[in-house]
């Protein structure tokens, strides 16, 4: 076990876990995201209010870094991972992988804003209100994104219709 030299560093394991989900299981990209987040957090450390909660503060920094990354990626031309995979003859992530990696690959296929809500609530166990503050969106938006994220993930992991009589996720609307 590493001896952490700073309060922020204590949170590296959970920041890495969150980043891994956001990047659909890609370790290198996830750690790049963590690195950018940490650099920003250390730089802004003097602005952190003692007594405030550290975790929401760090996760909101990661949210900002992630949103910028997503924006930068979408501005680049021909970076669609699926298109690249097609061009290079690489099978898209999904099949021939152990289930754990399949789940992460499926998370990676959700829209970025769905990934964030899903993981902050389901894995990092933030409340809806905390999640809303971290992402800068209304609580109602958190809840509707959460529902849609879970419904889509069920379809993307093939769990939506375990049998014809019992849908994995019922759509009440």
């Amino acid at each position, binding site marked *: 076990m590493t*001896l952490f030299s700073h309060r922020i560093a*204590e949170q590296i394991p959970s920041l890495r876990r969150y980043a891994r989900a956001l990047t659909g299981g890609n370790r290198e990209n996830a750690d790049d995201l963590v690195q950018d987040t940490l650099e920003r957090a250390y730089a802004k450390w003097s602005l952190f209010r003692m007594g405030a909660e550290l975790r929401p503060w760090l996760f909101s920094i990661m949210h900002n870094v992630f949103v910028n990354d997503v924006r930068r990626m979408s501005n680049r031309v021909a970076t669609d991972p699926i298109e690249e995979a*097609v061009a290079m003859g690489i099978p898209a992530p999904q099949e021939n992988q152990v289930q754990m990696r399949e789940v992460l690959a499926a998370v990676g296929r959700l829209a970025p804003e769905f990934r964030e809500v899903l993981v902050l609530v*389901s894995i990092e166990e933030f409340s809806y209100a905390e999640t809303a503050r971290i992402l800068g969106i209304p609580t109602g938006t958190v809840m509707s994104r959460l529902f849609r994220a*879970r419904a889509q993930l069920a*379809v993307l992991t093939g769990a939506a219709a375990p049998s*014809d009589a019992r849908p994995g996720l*019922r759509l009440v609307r």
Partner: protein
Amino acid sequence: MTKPQTLIADDELMAFIDGALDADRQRQIEQLALHDDELVATIAALRAQGKALRDSLDPVLVEPIPQRLLQLAPPSRFSLARVAAAMAWVAVGITAGSLTSWQYLSRNGQTGAEFASVSPAPDLPRFVRQATVAHAVFAPEVRHPVELDSTKLQALNAWLSGRLGRHMRAPDLSSLGFSLVGGRLLPADSGKPAAQFMYEDRQGQRLTVYLRGMAQPTPETAFRYLGEGGVSTFYWVEHNWGYALSGELSRPQLLQAARSIYEQLSI
């Protein structure tokens, strides 16, 4: 169908799963579940999904941390008390992840192929269910309705043809006023991946076409119609391929589109 007074909104179901409901409503829903198999199955599936997520992600917590991330910390005034707190937190995270077990986990652990082999049920109802669920889940999406959009039509056709193992092109429905939005690849518990094509007219009305190979030899069918909750579906089977067209169109309009798709995708 659930009775009106027992209807549980999507948001409430999420809050139930996440333990965010007040105690009274939480208990009410638990009571409802006693008499509602479908609700039980839904809750179990959601919990299994949460478990699968945690199982996939929690191992990250105990991975060695790359040096490049540790080096970033400025020289420290902090020390061992903090470290103890951090280790405790990591331990709690791991325990919470690994101790949680749910009734339906075994089902979640099965691969698609295993599931198909233990299920004696014919594949066709499952196919129709998957097609309609996929429509309900993705057709309302504003920002990310498809994985690959119609501006990359060639790549879309090549990709889905490759993954489904048959040559195909996204059907052209422009004569009916619908343009292609794009497509996505979807898994199915039969082990055969499915393709979904999405179309949109000028009013934003959407249609989806869903197709995959059937998990077992399936007799050919004529066009069959299913109307459920405002969404109509025509589906058919030909040469062990299942096809479904879903949308909120009138039956004659949808049938016209189904005929066109049948002609274009027939092999």
